[in-house]
């Protein structure tokens, strides 16, 4: 083998090794970086449904908010267009939802709705920039508790679109600016449903 051929062989061997080991290097970096806490600034929306019935159904969904923000505008189906959903019920039974929300937004913290009956207890309150809805359903054979906590900024963003539509992308964008928060909690004898926001890319339960 001539010296030129040997030199050529070394170059080829180096290139082949570089190509072969490049993915391993990436993999090693990725593995070391992997943890339950995602990269800086990432916000994850988690949905967890746990059923204690005989089948023991469990659903875990983890969605990066940024991904949802980017993907939603690509969906053009039924009532969802360009990240906005047409609800057609913003003026329900003569009640203008926007006007009601505007009144709630500009008012001081407090409990706005309290309904107590044999069937259910319902309360709606505003506290520290959050809108709380609490429903205790007594009517079902198995009592259920529903708690919804929505940052006012998110509601505001949802209603920022034109009339009769909710701007989901704007809502998600506003949600991304919030800290860790449990948005929805539903509990009854058989099911537990949670929707929450944090910076972890896995469900730690």
């Amino acid at each position, binding site marked *: 083998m001539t010296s030129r051929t040997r030199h050529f062989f070394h170059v080829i061997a180096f290139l082949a090794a570089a190509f*072969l080991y490049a993915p391993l290097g990436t993999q090693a970096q990725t593995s070391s970086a992997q943890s339950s806490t995602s990269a800086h600034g990432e916000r994850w929306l988690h949905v967890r449904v746990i059923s204690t019935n005989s089948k023991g159904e*469990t659903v875990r969904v983890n969605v990066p908010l940024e991904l949802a923000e980017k993907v939603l505008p690509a969906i053009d189906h039924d009532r969802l267009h360009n990240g906005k959903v047409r609800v057609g019920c913003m003026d329900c039974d003569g009640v203008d939802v926007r006007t009601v929300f505007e009144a709630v937004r500009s008012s001081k913290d407090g409990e706005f709705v309290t309904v107590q009956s044999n069937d259910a207890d319902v309360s709606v309150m505003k506290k520290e920039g959050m809108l709380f809805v609490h429903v205790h359903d007594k009517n079902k054979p198995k009592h259920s508790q529903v708690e919804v906590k929505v940052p006012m900024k998110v509601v505001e963003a949802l209603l920022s679109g034109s009339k009769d539509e909710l701007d989901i992308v704007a809502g998600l964008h506003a949600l991304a600016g919030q800290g860790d928060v449990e948005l929805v909690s539903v509990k009854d004898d058989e099911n537990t449903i949670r929707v929450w926001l944090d910076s972890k890319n896995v469900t730690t339960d």
Partner: protein
Amino acid sequence: MVLLAKIALGFGATVVLAGAYTFREGVLRVDVDETHGRGQHVHVWVPAAIVPMAMHFVVPRGRMLEAEERSAKFMPLVHAVAKELQKYPEAELVEVHDGPQYIRVRTHNGNLLIDAEEPGQTVHVSCPLATIDDVSRELATLAPAS
């Protein structure tokens, strides 16, 4: 003799480089195992690098057009999801247990992994997100304008 050695070296190096490049792009893998009766076992491993090219040669033109027409309206969505998911190379996305049925969708090392199990059948799919991105972009581009 030296000439033969040079030819062999050139050929060998080309094969090594081509192989290294091909597998560096990842592998599209589909495993289907049926365990009931005379269950079928399908195991397909395809280098992801050749998928976008192979689409044009392996799939008949008629079928390709049909696929493009049928998938056209979904491709922008698939493309957006694949493109964004590449930013999350390690993520648990969906996990569903329903009695004996189980579905898991996650990303690992830049691959989208789908595992589905039910009594008598298991399906595992692994595909590099970059490949899904390439293919969806290509199908979206080729689709007739509506």
